């Protein structure tokens, strides 16, 4: 009889140099062929569990191990990672830091070479694994030219190729656009339906994964186990814990006739050529306005020009045609690219997807604007961290700090690039509350986002495809009939994968 793919008995782990454990007292057993969904707030040790199942913890990272964790019949603590690697495949969150080789076929073969497979077997296995994730025929493509969703499916092919018994996926869709998310989740649903492998998934899109899950492991904020059981059991005992992500509450429309804050008129911009980068579309004749007190969402698949457009609006990149007019309260318009740096902070701010690139100070308090910012840190829940180095904060804390540093300067236009990337529910709520405050004060907000759940909280949606505006209107109308093909991934809850008939039992 096959042993259970995962058994934890009092398992815990404390990273070297930390006083509190990342995980403690886990007790659960997963049965063969089951899918386990791991749920818990940011920083609860979910990723640590994924690392432990693959043997990275304890073999590649220092720390203290307690209890027992078995993968199949192997004790993780006592098994060299090379041996454990035969049993377990791990997919990480970020596609770009897990793909090793410059071309697709070489990338899949990399893990097989590490296991010493002979060449004939590799030549046969690579196309099979690629076909399994819907990338058949992609063998010779450069990995850098794939979309984010394709890259994550490639990462899945990487771990499927060596035929492990256990697949572990650590937030595989966190960095993807809606079509990419839908494609990855659909592949996961197909794998689950076959029941020939056990799967552990850490995923913040619970709504999408619950229909696939056989078991749920619920963790608290301190790395302890709250519950383990079927989704129905866990939902009964801990109502709310498995609820789908909250959508952003609808906002009252801004006062009619609010003045224009920024006017984008027939803007085109070309991407610079980048080595081995994805084929990049340009921004092509885009026009729209954002008014004071208005929140506009900029949506579109990867590569549709959202980030380029944000950079043009911020004056960081000169358009090849068209104009951007940043209008001050007196009605005077300026080209943001021509304004001196010193004049910009009160006019516009950009919250980067990677908040770290914007950090200029070595202390949280200084980063937020000095002693005058102390009350702001309080409101952003960062007061206790005032003396920390901004680089040592978690992603959620960094994003809040990044927003906090714009609060003192009160820009009339706030640009945001994926403001909720990598945030859990709590983090998303905190960001939403802060943005609402700014909006009420008459701030114009333009945010690029992949998350349909944010759209109800926006006054308008501007949708891009291949650099052109294909929709500009109320969020409700966008969500009702998304102007993309297929439209479903762009709807609220639209990324739920189709479960194969007869497998959900």
């Amino acid at each position: 009889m096959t042993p259970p793919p995962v058994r934890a008995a009092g398992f815990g782990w404390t990273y070297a140099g930390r006083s509190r454990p990342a995980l403690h007292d886990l007790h659960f057993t997963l049965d063969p062929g089951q899918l386990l969904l791991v749920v818990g707030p940011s920083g609860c040790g979910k990723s640590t569990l994924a690392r432990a199942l693959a043997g990275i913890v304890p073999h590649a990272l220092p720390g203290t191990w307690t209890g027992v964790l078995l993968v199949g019949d192997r004790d993780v603590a006592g098994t060299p990672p090379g041996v454990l690697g035969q049993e377990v495949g791990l997919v990480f969150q970020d596609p770009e830091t897990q793909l090793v080789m410059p071309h697709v076929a070489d990338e899949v073969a990399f893990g097989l070479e590490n296991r010493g497979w002979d060449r004939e077997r590799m030549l046969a296995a690579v196309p099979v694994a690629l076909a399994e994730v819907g990338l058949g025929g992609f063998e010779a493509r450069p990995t850098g030219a794939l979309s984010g969703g394709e890259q994550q499916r490639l990462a899945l092919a990487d771990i499927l190729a060596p035929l492990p018994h256990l697949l572990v996926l650590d937030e595989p869709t966190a960095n993807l656009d809606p079509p990419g998310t839908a494609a990855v989740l659909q592949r996961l649903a197909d794998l689950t339906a076959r029941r020939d492998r056990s799967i552990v998934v850490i995923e913040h899109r619970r709504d999408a994964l619950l229909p696939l899950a056989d078991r749920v492991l619920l963790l608290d904020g301190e790395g302890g186990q709250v519950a383990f059981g079927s989704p129905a059991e866990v939902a009964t005992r801990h109502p709310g814990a498995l609820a789908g992500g909250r959508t952003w509450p609808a906002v009252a429309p801004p006062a009619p006739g609010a003045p224009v804050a920024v006017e984008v008129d027939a803007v085109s911009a070309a991407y610079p050529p980048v080595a081995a980068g994805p084929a990049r579309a340009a921004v092509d004749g885009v026009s729209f306005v954002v008014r004071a007190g208005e929140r506009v969402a900029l949506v579109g698949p990867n590569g549709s020009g959202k980030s380029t457009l944000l950079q043009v609006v911020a004056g960081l990149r000169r358009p090849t045609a068209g104009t951007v007019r940043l209008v001050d309260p007196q009605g005077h318009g300026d080209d943001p690219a021509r304004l001196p740096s010193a004049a910009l902070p009160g006019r516009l701010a950009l919250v980067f997807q990677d908040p770290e690139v914007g950090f200029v100070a070595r202390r949280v308090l200084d980063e937020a604007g000095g002693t005058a910012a102390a009350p702001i840190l309080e409101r952003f829940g960062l007061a206790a961290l005032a003396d920390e180095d901004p680089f040592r904060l978690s992603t959620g804390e960094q994003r809040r700090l990044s927003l906090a540093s714009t609060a003192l300067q009160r820009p009339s236009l706030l640009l945001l690039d994926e403001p909720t990337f990598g945030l859990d529910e709590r983090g998303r709520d905190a960001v939403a509350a802060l943005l609402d405050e700014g909006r009420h004060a008459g701030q114009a907000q333009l945010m690029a986002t992949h998350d349909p759940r944010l759209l109800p909280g926006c006054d308008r949606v501007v949708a891009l495809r291949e650099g052109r505006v294909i929709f500009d209107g109320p969020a409700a109308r966008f969500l009702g009939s998304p102007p993309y093909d297929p439209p479903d991934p762009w709807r609220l809850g639209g990324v739920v994968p189709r479960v194969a008939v007869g497998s959900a039992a």
Partner: protein
Amino acid sequence: MSFLPAPLLVRSSAPLARVTGVTRLAAGVLWLVAAAAVPDARGELVLLVTAVIVLVAWSGIPLRPLPRRMWPVALGALGLGLTAALGNAADRDLALPTLLALGPLRLTPPGLEAGLALALRVLVIGLTSLLVFAPADLTRLADALVQQLHLPDRLAYGSVAAMGLAPRTAADWQATGSARRLRGLAPRTPAGRLAAVPGRLLVVLVMAFRRGERLALAMDARGFDSGLPRSRYRPVRAGPLDAVVLAVAVAAVVLVVAVERTG
């Protein structure tokens, strides 16, 4: 905007693209030894012209993008050549004829010869590097280094993986500049710009380091460097063409050095 150039699209059927990276490396080292060994500008010129013939006829490297790629090498050659020509000890020998006077500086025939030789040598080095590294992608070069020279896998494929992160790091550098501009902190003077570099560099390095760490974990998780012997998906085999390229390189170098040393 980006300071990472797109890779050159090399015609893969070209002879130089069909030999292994180690063969090209060996031929290139021979060429550089010859460049160091020939005593004068004429010898360097012969080496350079030969390398240009190889470039045009057998490398498969497209010529059109080269001026934009190679101008730093040309500029370096010019600068070093001028320095050597005008700073030559012979230039102070008043017995020698003056070819050119630039204020206190004068150019004499031995100075000109030395400057020319150095400039040509720099061009030979630049062109040789191009011929060695441009015809194969990074993967093939790593394969050859590991399989033929038995370089550690960790070093070779670790470098391949790290190169994949380079474009991101370049983008981070630009983003740090953008962020400073928006925060009202853009330096207005060249000195200020220079002073901002350490801070920006710190951010970029921290981010690159984190990314590298995540990549290393991902590689470990896939069983890289776990002590098991690795097998080879892309075997590298030297063939008759490799022998021919090496033989031609040896013959050319011996010939040039012999003629130049005696002549």
